[in-house]
C-alpha cells in the first residue's frame, strides 16, 4: 500500500486526498459498510437499549421517551427475596458444571487416546459427538422419557434392582435437579468438547512417549508426565473462558428441564430470572437491570481469571 501511494503521488504531483482514495475503492467499501450498519442496528442499538435498566421503560415511549429513575430497579433487584436464591443457584450450578463438566471431556480425550483399535475409537467418537447436534428440546424429550414415572427406563432399572419400590418422579424433586442438569449437560457436550483436547494430544511429539517408555514409564505415568503437561496451555485457556462464564449457569437447559414450578427454588438462575421477569411478566426495566448486573460481574470475572492465568504463563489476549 505504501508503494502504491508513492507511485500515485509521483504520477499526479500531489498526494491524493483521503476521499479520492476512498472513492476509488468504493466497491470493497460497499461490501463492508452495509454489514456494519446491520451490526450497528442489531448489536449496538440493543447495547444502547441497556440504559433502559435506569428507566421505567414504557412500551409507547420506547428507549428514548421513558422516564429516568436512576438505580431504582437495581435496588429492587438486590433487595428482593429472589436475589439470594437466584445468586445461590447461579453460583452453585456453575461451580458444579465447572468442577464436573469441565474435566469430563479432558478425561474422555485421554481415554480415547489410549485406544489402539482405530475402528473402536472412531465409533465411540462418532457416537459421542451426536448429542451435541440435537436441540435441547429433543434432549429434554429424551430425559423426560428416560426418567418418567410412567415406565421410564431409569425407574424400570432401579425397580428391577430393588433399589426403589415406587417409581421416582425425578423431575419434580428439587434435590435431584442439579444432578440431572449437570449430568444431562455432560451427556450432551462431553464428546464435542473433547475434540479440541484430542487435537492438542495429537500434536504431541511421539518421540517423547518413546523416550519415556524406554525409561520404563507405564502408560499411566506417560499420561501424567507427558500428555497432561503438553496440553496444559489448552486446558488453561478453556479454564479461563469457563471461569469468565461462571454467571452463565445455563439457560436453554434449565428452561427445558425445569418445567415443573416446584423446582423454581433450585432452578432459577440470573438468565432464566431475566427471561421470566422480562418476557413473561413484562417487567422490562427490572429484568434489564438484573441482566446488566450479570454482564458487568461477568466481565470483571473474565478480567480476573485472565490476570490469574497470566501469572501462570498464558493469557487470552
Amino acid at each position, binding site marked *: 500500500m505504501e508503494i502504491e501511494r508513492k507511485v500515485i503521488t509521483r504520477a499526479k504531483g500531489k498526494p491524493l486526498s483521503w476521499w479520492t*482514495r476512498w472513492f476509488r475503492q468504493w466497491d*470493497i*467499501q460497499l*461490501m*463492508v459498510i452495509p*454489514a*456494519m450498519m*446491520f*451490526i450497528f442496528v*442489531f*448489536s449496538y*442499538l*440493543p*447495547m*444502547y*437499549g*441497556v440504559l*433502559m435498566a435506569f428507566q421505567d421503560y414504557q412500551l409507547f415511549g*420506547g*428507549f428514548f421517551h421513558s422516564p429516568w429513575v436512576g438505580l431504582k430497579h437495581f435496588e429492587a433487584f438486590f433487595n428482593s427475596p429472589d436475589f439470594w436464591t437466584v445468586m445461590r443457584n447461579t453460583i452453585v450450578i456453575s461451580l458444579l458444571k465447572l468442577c464436573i463438566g469441565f474435566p469430563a471431556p479432558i478425561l*474422555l480425550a485421554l*481415554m*480415547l487416546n*489410549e*485406544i*489402539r483399535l482405530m475402528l*473402536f475409537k472412531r*465409533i*465411540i467418537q462418532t457416537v459421542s459427538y451426536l448429542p451435541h*447436534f*440435537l*436441540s435441547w*428440546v429433543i434432549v*429434554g*424429550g*429424551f430425559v423426560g*422419557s*428416560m426418567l*418418567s414415572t*410412567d*415406565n421410564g*427406563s431409569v425407574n*424400570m432399572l432401579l425397580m428391577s434392582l430393588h433399589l426403589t419400590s415406587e417409581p421416582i418422579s425425578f423431575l419434580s424433586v428439587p434435590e435431584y435437579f442439579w444432578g440431572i442438569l449437570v449430568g444431562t449437560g455432560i451427556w450432551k457436550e462431553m464428546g*464435542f468438547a473433547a*475434540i*479440541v483436547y484430542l*487435537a492438542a494430544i495429537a500434536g504431541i511429539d511421539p518421540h517423547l512417549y518413546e523416550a519415556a517408555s524406554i525409561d520404563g514409564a*507405564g*502408560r*499411566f505415568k506417560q499420561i501424567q508426565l507427558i500428555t497432561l503437561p503438553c496440553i496444559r496451555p489448552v486446558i488453561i485457556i478453556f479454564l479461563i473462558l469457563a471461569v469468565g462464564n461462571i454467571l452463565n449457569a445455563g439457560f436453554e437447559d434449565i428452561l*427445558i428441564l425445569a*418445567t415443573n414450578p416446584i423446582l423454581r427454588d433450585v432452578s432459577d438462575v440470573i438468565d432464566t430470572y*431475566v*427471561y421470566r421477569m422480562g*418476557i413473561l411478566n413484562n417487567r*422490562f426495566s427490572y*429484568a434489564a437491570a438484573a441482566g*446488566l448486573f450479570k*454482564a458487568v460481574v461477568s*466481565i470483571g470475572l473474565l478480567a480476573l481469571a485472565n490476570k490469574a492465568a497470566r501469572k501462570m504463563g498464558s493469557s487470552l489476549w
Partner: protein
Amino acid sequence: MMKLSAGDKFLQVIIYATLLLLGFITLYPFWNSLVISFNMGSDTALGGITFWPRSPTLDNYEVVFRDSRIGHAFLISIMRTIVGTTLSVMFTAILAYGLSRHELMGRKIYMVFCIITMYFSGGLIPTFLLLREFGMMDTFWVLVIPGMISVYNMIIFRTFFLGLPAGLVESARIDGCNHIGVLTRIILPISGPVVATLSLFTAVYHWNDWFSASIYINNPDLIPIQTLLKQILNSNIVTDQLQKAIGSSAAAQDRLALVQSVTSKSLIMATTMVATLPIIMVYPFLQKYFVKGVLIGSLKE
C-alpha cells in the same frame, strides 16, 4: 509397540469398559425413544419396553403425520433453515472478503467494531424490545434476519481467505474482474470445505433453535417444529391432537380404534423422532467437516 505391562493391561481394560458404557449411555435414550415411537402406545404403558418394540406399529406416526400443525411446523423449519443459512453464509462471506482485502481503508476500525460485539451484547430484554419496536414480532423474518451476520463465522471465513495466495485475486483484478466476481468465481469455488462447514453449522443452529420463535412468535402458523415440540412436551396439546385425529374423519369409529392404542407418550416420541430425523440425515456430512470447523474456530486467537 512394546509388550504391555500388567498395569497397562489393567488400564486398557478399564478404559475399554468405560468407553463402551459411555457409548451405551449416549445411544440408549435415542434408541429407546425410537423403539417407543414404533411400539403401540397402549402396550408401552404396560412397561418393560427397552431395546425392541413388543407390538410394532406405525400408528403413532400416522397420527403425527395426520396432524397438519406438525407438517406445517416442519415446513416452516425447513424454510427457515434454507433461507436463514443461505442469507447468513452469503452476507457473512461478502463481509469477510471485504475485510480480508489489505487495501480496505478503515480495516482495523471495522474489525474492532465487529469484535466488540463478541464480548458485549445488549442482552435478552433490550434485543427483544428493539425487534418488537421494529415490528418484527410474528413475522418469518424475525427468525432469519437478526442472526444474519455472524462475526464468529466472519472471522473463520476471513482467516481462510487471508491464507489464500494473494496472486489469485490480483491476477483476476488485472483481468478486469470486479470484487463480487472475484468472490463468486474464484474465491468461493476453492473455499468448499469452509463454506460447507459454516453452512452446516448455521443450518443446524436454525433447525435446532426453538427459543427465538417461542418469544417472538405467537402466530401458530409460523411456529417451527422445535418450538412446537417444546409446546407439546409441556402441555396437553396431545389430547387435543388425538381428538382432532378422531373428529376430522368420516370413518370416526375406525379412527377411534387407531387412536385408542396411541398414548401421549408414544406420540411425543414419534414427534421427537420426526424433529430429529433431518439432523441424523446430515450427521455424516457434519461429521466430515465439523472437526475442522471446531479447530479453525479455536485457533482464531
